[in-house]
C-alpha cells in the first residue's frame, strides 16, 4: 500500500519534534452490500475508504491526525499535524529499523467476494425472501441483507514493527415481521464469518429464512414476560453477549487503569463460580472477531481472562502495555484509519462444562429460558448491565412452556459470574456482533454453552 522507504521517512517526520513513539496505520477498505426489502431489491451499495492515521506519543499525551491522501507529501503533513498535537518540544532525529512481522490467520480465503457476480448475491436475497414469505401467511414483511468487506491494513511504528493484513468478512441476515390479532412481532437471523463467499457453503440461507420467520410467528402467541427475580437458563450460543458486557468490558486495561472497572486490582481473586472459564480469542478460525494481527500490528492471541473462577489477566493494547512494561495481548483495535486504537475484545466466550443441557432445564422449577439475547449495555464502573431478550420461553416445573414477549434482563456483572450454577456440555458461538465503545464499532464474536444463572431480574410487564 505504501513503500517501506516512505514509511521510514514519515515516521522520522513524526518523531522529529521529540515524539517518543510514532505509528502509521494505513487502510484500504472496500465494501459492498445489497438489500432486499419490501418485496424488491432496493439497492446495491459499493464503498471505498482509504487513508492513513498517524499517532505520535509524548509522555502521556497522544497526538493523532488522519488523511485520505496516501502520497508521501500527504502522509508527512499528517505526521506533522500529529506531532504538533502531541506538543513535542525536543529535537534530534531518529531512524527506525523496520522488521516485517508475519501475519497468519491459519487458513485461506477461498472466494473473494469481488470475484462473485453481483447477480449471485441478489439471488441469495431473493431466495431468502421467498422462503420466509412461504413459511406462513402471517409473515407480513421480510427484509434480507448481504454484505461483504475486504480490508487491507499496514501498520508500522517506531518500535520497528511492520505488519500487514488482508481481512475478508461476509455477512447475511434475514428479518421478518409477523402480523396477527395481537399486533406485530419481529424475528431475525444473521450469520457472519471472517471468510469470503464460501460463507454460503457453510450456511443455508433458506434455513435461515425459515428460522427468522419462525421466531416472529412464535412471538405472536407470546405472553408478557414476568417481572422480578428468577433463575435464567441461557441456551447454547444465544447469550455470549451477556459475558461480553457483564465481564469483558470491565477487563479492558484502559478502563481498569482509570478505575472505571469493578475488576480493578482483583487479579488472582475468585470472581466467578468454580468451573467458569472466560476466554477472549482473536485466533478462532473464521469467527467474526477473528484477526491475524490487531490494528497496532500485534499478532492476535488466545487470552484466558478468568480461569476456573479466578481472575487471571486483563486485555491490553500497545500503549497501555508499554506503560506497564508488558507485551500487548493483541487487543488494540480501531474502527478505521480515522480513529485511535483502544482496548477491544475479539471473540469472547465461556468454556463448556459437563452437564446435559436438558437436565439443566429439567432441574429449574420456575424460570426463563433465553434462546437469544439482543444487544446490551454495561456500566463498567458499577458492573450493572441490561440486555434485551429477543427469544425467550417460560420454564414451569422443569418444562419449557410458553413463549414470552420481549423484555430486558438486568443484573450486575460480578454478581452474575458468582451465580452461574450450571454449565452445559454444548458450547456454540452466537451470531456476529458489533461492539460499540467510545463511538467506535468493531466486529466481535461471542459464545456460551447452555448455562444457568441462579437469579437475575427479568423486566417484563406481567406481575
Amino acid at each position, binding site marked *: 500500500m505504501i513503500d517501506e522507504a516512505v514509511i521510514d521517512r514519515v515516521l522520522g517526520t513524526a518523531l522529529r519534534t521529540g515524539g517518543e513513539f510514532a505509528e502509521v496505520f494505513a487502510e484500504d477498505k472496500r465494501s459492498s452490500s445489497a438489500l432486499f426489502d419490501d418485496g424488491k431489491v432496493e439497492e446495491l*451499495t459499493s464503498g471505498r475508504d482509504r487513508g492513513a492515521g498517524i499517532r505520535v506519543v509524548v509522555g502521556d499525551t497522544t497526538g493523532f*491526525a488522519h488523511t485520505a491522501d496516501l502520497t508521501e507529501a500527504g502522509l508527512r503533513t499528517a505526521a506533522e499535524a500529529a506531532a504538533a*498535537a502531541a506538543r513535542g518540544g525536543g529535537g534530534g532525529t531518529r531512524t527506525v529499523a523496520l522488521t516485517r512481522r508475519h501475519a497468519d490467520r491459519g487458513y485461506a480465503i477461498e472466494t473473494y467476494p469481488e470475484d462473485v457476480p453481483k447477480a449471485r448475491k441478489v439471488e441469495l436475497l431473493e431466495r431468502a425472501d421467498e422462503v420466509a414469505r412461504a413459511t406462513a401467511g402471517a409473515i407480513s414483511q421480510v427484509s434480507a441483507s448481504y454484505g461483504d468487506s475486504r480490508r487491507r491494513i499496514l501498520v508500522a511504528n517506531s518500535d520497528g514493527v511492520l505488519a500487514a493484513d488482508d481481512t475478508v468478512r461476509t455477512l447475511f441476515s434475514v428479518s421478518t415481521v409477523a402480523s396477527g390479532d395481537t399486533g*406485530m412481532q419481529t424475528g431475525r437471523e444473521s450469520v457472519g464469518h471472517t471468510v469470503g463467499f464460501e460463507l454460503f457453503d457453510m450456511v443455508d440461507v433458506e434455513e435461515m429464512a425459515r428460522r427468522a420467520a419462525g421466531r416472529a410467528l412464535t412471538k405472536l402467541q407470546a405472553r408478557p414476560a414476568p417481572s422480578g427475580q428468577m433463575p435464567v437458563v441461557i441456551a447454547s450460543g444465544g447469550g455470549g453477549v451477556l459475558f461480553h458486557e457483564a465481564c469483558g468490558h470491565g477487563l479492558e486495561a484502559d478502563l481498569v487503569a482509570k478505575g472505571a472497572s469493578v475488576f480493578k486490582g482483583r487479579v488472582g481473586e475468585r470472581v466467578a463460580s468454580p468451573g467458569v472459564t472466560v476466554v477472549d480469542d482473536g485466533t478462532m478460525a473464521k469467527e467474526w472477531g477473528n484477526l491475524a494481527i490487531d490494528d497496532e500490528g500485534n499478532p492476535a492471541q488466545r487470552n484466558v481472562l478468568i480461569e476456573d473462577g479466578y481472575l487471571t489477566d486483563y486485555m491490553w493494547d500497545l500503549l497501555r502495555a508499554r506503560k506497564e512494561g508488558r507485551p500487548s495481548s493483541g487487543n488494540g483495535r480501531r474502527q478505521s484509519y480515522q480513529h485511535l486504537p483502544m482496548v477491544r475484545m475479539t471473540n469472547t466466550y465461556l468454556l463448556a462444562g459437563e452437564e446435559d443441557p436438558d437436565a439443566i432445564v429439567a432441574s429449574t422449577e420456575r424460570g426463563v429460558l433465553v434462546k437469544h439475547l439482543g444487544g446490551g449495555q454495561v456500566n463498567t464502573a458499577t458492573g*450493572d448491565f441490561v*440486555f*434485551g431478550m429477543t427469544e425467550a420461553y417460560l420454564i414451569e416445573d422443569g418444562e419449557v412452556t410458553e413463549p414470552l414477549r420481549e423484555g*430486558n434482563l*438486568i*443484573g450486575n456483572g460480578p454478581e452474575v459470574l458468582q451465580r452461574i450454577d450450571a454449565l452445559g456440555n454444548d458450547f456454540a458461538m452466537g451470531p456476529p456482533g458489533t461492539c460499540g465503545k467510545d463511538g467506535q464499532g468493531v466486529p466481535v464474536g461471542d459464545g456460551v454453552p447452555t448455562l444457568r444463572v441462579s437469579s437475575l431480574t427479568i423486566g417484563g410487564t406481567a406481575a
Partner: protein
Amino acid sequence: MGDLLDIADQVVARANDGEQLEAVVVRGLDTEIRVYEGEVESLASAQSQGVGVRVVVGGRQGFAYAGSLDPDVLDETLAEARDNARFATVDPFAGLAEPDGVTVPTLDLYRESLAHTPTDRKVGLALELERAVRAADGRISGIESAEYVDSLSEAAIVTTTGIRSSSRDSSCYVATYAMATEGPDTQTGFGFSVGRDLESLDVSRAATDAADRATRLLGASQPPSERVTVVLDPWVTAQFLGLIGYTLGGEAVLKGRSLFAERLGEQVASPLVTLVDDPTDPRAFTATDTDGEGLAARRNVLVADGTLSMFVHNAYTGRRSGGASTGNAVRGYSSTPSVGCMAVSLVPGTASQGELVASVGDGVLIQDVAGLHSGVNPVSGDFSTGAEGLRIRGGELAEPVREFTIASTLQRMLLDVAAVGGDLQWLPMNASGVSLVIHDVTVSGA
C-alpha cells in the same frame, strides 16, 4: 464551500440521457481533545471528506460512495453506482427529489469564530471541565472521561432534477463521565453542554450535572417490583421521543413496520401531547436548513393534542404514499437517504420538575435508562429498559434506586402521559426533552 458545489456539479454533468444523477459531497473538520488527570490524553484533529453518488435509471436505483474527492475516485464511484443500478428491481416510485418551491429557511448554524479558535483554548476548556468536576463534590473519586469535541461541516447536493443546495454548520460540546464513591459503593454520572461556538458552552453546568448525577445515586438499592407513576427526566424523555419519531417515519409506515401505520387521525396519545419535528429551530442540536435530498427543512406537527396528524417522508416515501416529501430525508454521504424525524420535541407545559414531583406524591424519578436500543421494539411497541433514579415519597425526592427495569408499550405510554413539564432541554441528539409524568409503568426489581 463553492468548491463542494463545483465537485457535485462536475459529477452530475456526466449524466447520460434518461439517467437521474445525484451527488452529495461533504467535508468536515473535527477536533477531539480528551484530558485525564490534568494532562492532555489525546488530541485528534483531522479533515475528512466524502462523496455519495446515486443513479436512477429506468426505475432502478444504484449507489456508491468513497471517502475521497480525487477526480479518479469520483469516476470510479459513478461507474460503481451505475453498475449497481443494473441489479435493482424496477420500482415505479424510484427517483430523486425535485424542487418543491418551499423556501429554505435562513438559520444561524455556522459560527466563523469556531474555525479560528486556537487549540489551546479548547484544551483549556477540557482541563477546566475536569477540574470543575473534581471540585464539585468531595465524593468524586475519578473521572472516566472529560472531553471537548467540535466539528465544522459543509455539504453540497446537486441533482439532474434541479436540486442545487449547500449548507454548513458548526457545533461543539464538552462532556464528562464522573465516578463518585462512598464506602464500598461507586456510582457514575454524566454531564455535557452543547453549542455552536465556545461562548455558548456552559462548563460549570456540565460539571455540576455529572457530579450531581453520580453522588445522588450513592447508596442506591434495588426497588421492589410494582406498578408506579414515573417522572422521566428530560434526558430520558428525549431518548423515548427519538424512538417514537422513528415509528412515524414514512418508510416504517409503508413497509408495515410501524405500530402507528393505520392510525392517522386517531387519538394515539394523551390530549396533553403535541409532538413536533422542527429542524428549523436553531436551538436544536440537529437543526438544519435543508434535508438529506437538498429540500428545505420545515416544521411538521406529528401529533396534535393527542391526535396523530401526519407521517414524515422523503421524496421516495412521499411519492409512494401519494403525497410529497415533508423534507425529512436523512443521510450521510455513505448511504442513500432514509426517512426520519430530525429534531423532535414535545410542546412544553408550564410546571417545573419539582412541581411535577410534588404532584405525583409517590413514584419514581427516572434519572437515566440503559439498553434502550435493545429493549424497545419499534415494530411491536413493547419496551423494557434498565433504569436508575430516585424514589418520590410524599411529593419529595427520597432514596436512590438502581438495577431495575421499567416496562410498558410505546402505545400505552403515550396514552398514560399525565403531565408535560415546562423544562425544555436541548440535547446532543435528534430530540429535545422535558420532564414527563407517566402513570402505571411496571417496575421490575427485587
